[in-house]
């Protein structure tokens, strides 16, 4: 049990901390972390399948600007760890992992957005003093290390405390609550997608959201095909816009000799 908890924490550290250390390389996505956790815990195949299933569930959840709708990495590690517990079916392990992911999301967001703010004054102070080592080594890599060791230990204790009790706990959950949790898992991606959408949405282009939805829902096309349609559409829109732009500027050049120098000033304000 100690081993399982340690290896779970290790796979979380490798994938989650590694993702942030090396260019947000997506190693923290369920599909990757599931495989890593499966490999370390001795059941690669189970890890791959759980990872792929949870990747589809959390497709819409990404970590944007420090807002994360659920810690999908922790959810996957817990699901794989609990699935090695013979008394628990993999599907039950996945269901129980989703609320755990939400809880872990609170922890990571609390640290990243709230706790780390206390360092802001130190950043300014060290910058004034020209303390490069402090800024670049301690605050960049040091904070990365300490923070992620903390997250990994939360995972460690979660698995360690939960492992033996989880099957008893899951069996003690009334069937109706278990159904509720499953439903929650199916509705929750809405929050992550809303977050993605909020980043991009403007009134002018909002309608294209409906287009993507309808193409997938009614035509049942694979998501790659939807992407190809989208790319073709966007290229033709861009071509038209560039053309319009060119005509407009030609018109302006003929209409007046006044250049648009002020635009840049406004832009930089």
């Amino acid at each position, binding site marked *: 049990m100690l081993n399982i908890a340690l290896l779970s924490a290790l796979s979380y550290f490798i994938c989650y901390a590694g993702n942030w250390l090396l260019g947000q390389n997506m190693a923290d996505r369920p599909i990757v972390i599931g495989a890593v956790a499966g490999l370390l815990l001795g059941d690669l195949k189970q890890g791959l399948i759980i990872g792929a299933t949870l990747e589809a569930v959390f497709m819409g959840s990404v970590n944007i600007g420090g807002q994360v709708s659920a810690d999908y990495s922790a959810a996957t590690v817990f699901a794989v760890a609990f699935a090695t517990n013979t008394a628990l079916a993999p599907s039950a392990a996945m269901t129980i992992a989703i609320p755990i992911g939400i809880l872990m999301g609170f922890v990571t967001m609390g640290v990243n957005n709230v706790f780390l703010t206390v360092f802001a004054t130190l950043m300014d102070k060290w910058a004034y003093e020209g303390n490069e080592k402090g*800024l670049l080594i301690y605050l960049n890599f040091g904070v990365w290390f300490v923070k992620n060791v903390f997250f990994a230990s939360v995972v460690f204790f979660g698995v360690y405390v939960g492992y033996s009790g989880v099957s008893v706990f899951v069996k003690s959950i009334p069937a*109706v609550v278990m159904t509720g949790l499953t*439903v929650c898992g199916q509705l929750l991606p809405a929050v992550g997608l809303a977050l993605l959408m909020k980043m991009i949405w403007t009134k002018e282009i909002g309608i294209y959201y409906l287009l993507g939805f309808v193409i997938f829902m009614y035509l049942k096309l694979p998501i790659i095909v939807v992407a190809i349609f989208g790319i073709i559409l966007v290229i033709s829109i*861009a071509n038209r816009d560039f053309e319009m732009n060119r005509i407009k500027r030609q018109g302006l050049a003929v209409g007046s000799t006044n250049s648009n120098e002020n635009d840049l000033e406004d*832009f930089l304000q």
Partner: protein
Amino acid sequence: MKYLNDLSIDDKKMVNSIAWRSLNAHCSRVGGQARQMAIGFLWQIMPALNRYYKDQPEKKRDALVRHVQFCNVSNPVYPLLAGIVASMEKENSEVEDFDTSSIVAIKAALMGPLAGIGDSFLFSVVRVIAASIGIGFALQGSVLGPIIFFLIYNSVTMGMRFGLAYAGFVSGRQFITTMYKNGTLAILTKCAGILGLIMVGAMTASTVKFSTAIVIPISGGDAVKLQSSLDSLFLGLVPILLTLGCKKMLDKRININYIMLGILVLSILMAVFHIV
């Protein structure tokens, strides 16, 4: 790029270093929401500061102070911003009365559009395509799944890092101000947004699922299943309304945690009352 040949070996070394260092730019997030990836930006721009301010400690210190302020762009797009800033820092080191506030201004002006283009392209398009290929393999228990996913996403981003770092440094702020002036930036933002929204729409249809168990008994006739009536009205009505509702709540600055807790409680209540 015809200017590429004009770069000295030292220039190339510095630009490559900026591109490599962008990998670590999202490491710590120290300073929390107020600073986001500021330290990461400083880490990237250090090769330029070390080089240009070698004999000007006063200006270097000012640059440190300048670059610990709020900064956040999608990680693989960071080198473009860093390349542009590096070319401006170079100017500052050579010219006596350079207005350094223009460096801060260009960072602030570009962050939004670049993050918008980068996030919608990378998270909603590249990642989703890579994942949908990878999931197919992984579900069959093939280890190729995660490997293909990882390789597709990261080969795209690695290419971007180097291309953008050179583009940023070689053309400097000229490049981006021209792009702004002739409307190219606005068109790119719009198109990345459209593509992103189409993909988010498709993901809503594929991942958000809801089905009600409510059956409406009709006296003297067959009972009506509410879900089939909903389906004949519009497939996926509840998922799309829920997602748009969540977006409305996020727009109103309702804490995302409350929204998630709300969905959890609602789901359990629906189960208790046999709605689902």
